[in-house]
């Protein structure tokens, strides 16, 4: 397959320039009627405390562009009673940007514009859904070509896009429903062992998965992400400063960003059964001087099982098309490390079974894995990879123990 359908964004190396020194969350849940702003504040407060800092130490704030109800300098000062000047960037948040925020942060740290930078993301879509407003389809419903052409033909929302991708992946590579189910089951088992997971009390076996009805054939409800309320934040600083803080620093070693020429017009993407990870991951591994074989724990933006599967392939953890066979059995379990042929994957449960926090909770989980404080701890985890995804863009973030 030709690679002219996308590209990697050229990025200067920031290997070793950024440390993640604190992580925090507001509890994830189904409908809670909490506001995104309040949850973001709670996550920020927890991340600052985790690092052993105080709100007055924070001088940088990263949020997601184009999403209502995210955080602001005014909200920060109102919550914490502070007055300092805050560098605010819209190059942060979740999805792809949970992986690329450290790149923008590196420049601010290098120039001295900021010393302690928070990246935060909050979402209240479970409450919005209950109120009949908002949700993940809104962007697509409002986009001109989608509204003017795709929606009238029933090609909407995301489950319809990715069910078609799954069918084509099955056709091209022999991927099976049970192999998609193996991803759903592995992540559910992780959620069952994670105190913060929305699906903690709900077991799922492969037999149960296969017995569930199709929602958008060939995908079942269990192939879809949750819709949740919650927030998470991580705190970035230089590795030098981080070494004096409360927790063992986690060092950003590589960042990559990939772009699909077709953007979110998924039907027209040149390689229909691939993701822009095909471009992001090689760039990140090159920056880090690492390879997929070095990764001890992987967390990937998983709106649907098929999207998780394609990114595992596109990031180089197996050959393209072999993802179905690769994820079968217990390979994705946290208990079976790389030394035993496994690939510990979405060890908090991911978007499918932890919560739909759009990927920022994935980064929080990986930081905890590298510190040795995860609920489903991977033995001797030293290298972690996050695969961020927005559809038209993807990112790879590689982190290592200091």
């Amino acid at each position, binding site marked *: 397959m030709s690679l002219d359908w996308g590209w990697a964004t050229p990025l200067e190396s920031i290997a070793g320039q950024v440390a993640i020194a604190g992580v925090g969350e507001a509890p994830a849940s189904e409908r809670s009627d909490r506001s995104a702003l309040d949850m973001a504040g709670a996550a920020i407060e927890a991340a600052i405390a985790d690092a052993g800092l105080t709100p007055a130490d924070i001088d940088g704030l990263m949020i997601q562009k184009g999403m209502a109800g995210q955080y602001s300098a005014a909200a920060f000062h109102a919550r914490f009673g502070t007055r300092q000047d805050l560098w605010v960037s819209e190059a942060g948040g979740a999805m792809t940007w949970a992986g690329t925020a450290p790149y923008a942060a590196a420049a601010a740290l290098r120039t001295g514009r900021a010393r302690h930078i928070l990246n935060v993301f909050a979402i209240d879509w479970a409450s919005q859904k209950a109120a009949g407003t908002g949700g993940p389809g809104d962007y697509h419903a409002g986009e001109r070509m989608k509204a003017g052409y795709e929606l009238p033909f*029933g090609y909407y929302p995301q489950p319809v896009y990715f*069910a078609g991708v799954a069918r084509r992946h099955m056709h091209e590579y022999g991927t099976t429903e049970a192999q998609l189910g193996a991803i759903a089951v592995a992540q559910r088992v992780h959620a069952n062992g994670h105190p913060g997971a929305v699906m903690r009390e709900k077991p799922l076996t492969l037999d149960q998965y296969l017995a569930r009805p199709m929602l958008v054939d060939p995908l079942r409800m269990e192939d879809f992400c949750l819709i949740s309320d919650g927030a998470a934040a991580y705190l970035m600083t230089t590795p030098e400063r981080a070494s004096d803080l409360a927790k063992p620093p986690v060092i950003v070693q590589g960042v990559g960003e990939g772009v699909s020429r077709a953007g979110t017009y998924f039907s*027209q993407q040149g390689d229909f059964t691939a993701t822009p990870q095909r471009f992001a991951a090689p760039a990140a591994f090159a920056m880090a001087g690492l390879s997929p074989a070095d990764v001890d724990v992987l967390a990937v933006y998983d709106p649907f099982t098929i999207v998780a599967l394609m990114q595992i392939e596109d990031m180089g953890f197996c050959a393209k098309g072999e993802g179905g066979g690769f994820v079968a059995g217990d390979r994705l379990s946290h208990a079976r490390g790389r030394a035993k042929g496994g690939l510990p994957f979405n060890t908090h449960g991911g978007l499918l079974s932890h919560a739909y926090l759009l990927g920022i909770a994935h980064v929080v989980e990986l930081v905890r894995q590298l510190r040795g404080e995860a609920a489903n701890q991977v033995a001797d985890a030293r290298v972690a990879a996050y695969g961020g995804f927005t559809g038209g863009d993807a990112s790879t973030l590689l982190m290592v123990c200091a």
Partner: protein
Amino acid sequence: MTAGFPLPDTTDPRLAPFWEAAAQGELRLPRRVHGTGFDWYPSGAEVEWVRLPGTGRLFTWSVVERPLHSGYAGITPYVSALVELDGAPGVRLVTRLLEAPDRLTIGAPVIVRFTDLGTPGPETAVIAPLFVLHCVKDKS
């Protein structure tokens, strides 16, 4: 009774020729005047809207069992399909197949059927290129 069905703005200049052609029972897509290939989705390049034969092959499909948009109640369950069109290499047309899903295979020949967007539910008064399987007769 088309309440809530997501109707297209058939006057949007980027797609008006597509919908105008469909109303006349023709499938037309924008081919670049300069360079090669089709400008799909339209980017604003200079194009001519060329008529296509309306045949092609099924690239992929899914079966939507429950309405995921309130406006789809009248068409659900339905087969969402992408079709590779004869005469328009590189284009995958977003459409619906008016077929029972158990008859479908990837690569199957399909042919356009101009019909109301809301088929088989309430009429929307917008004619669109939906598709059916194209059973090519055995000439032997």
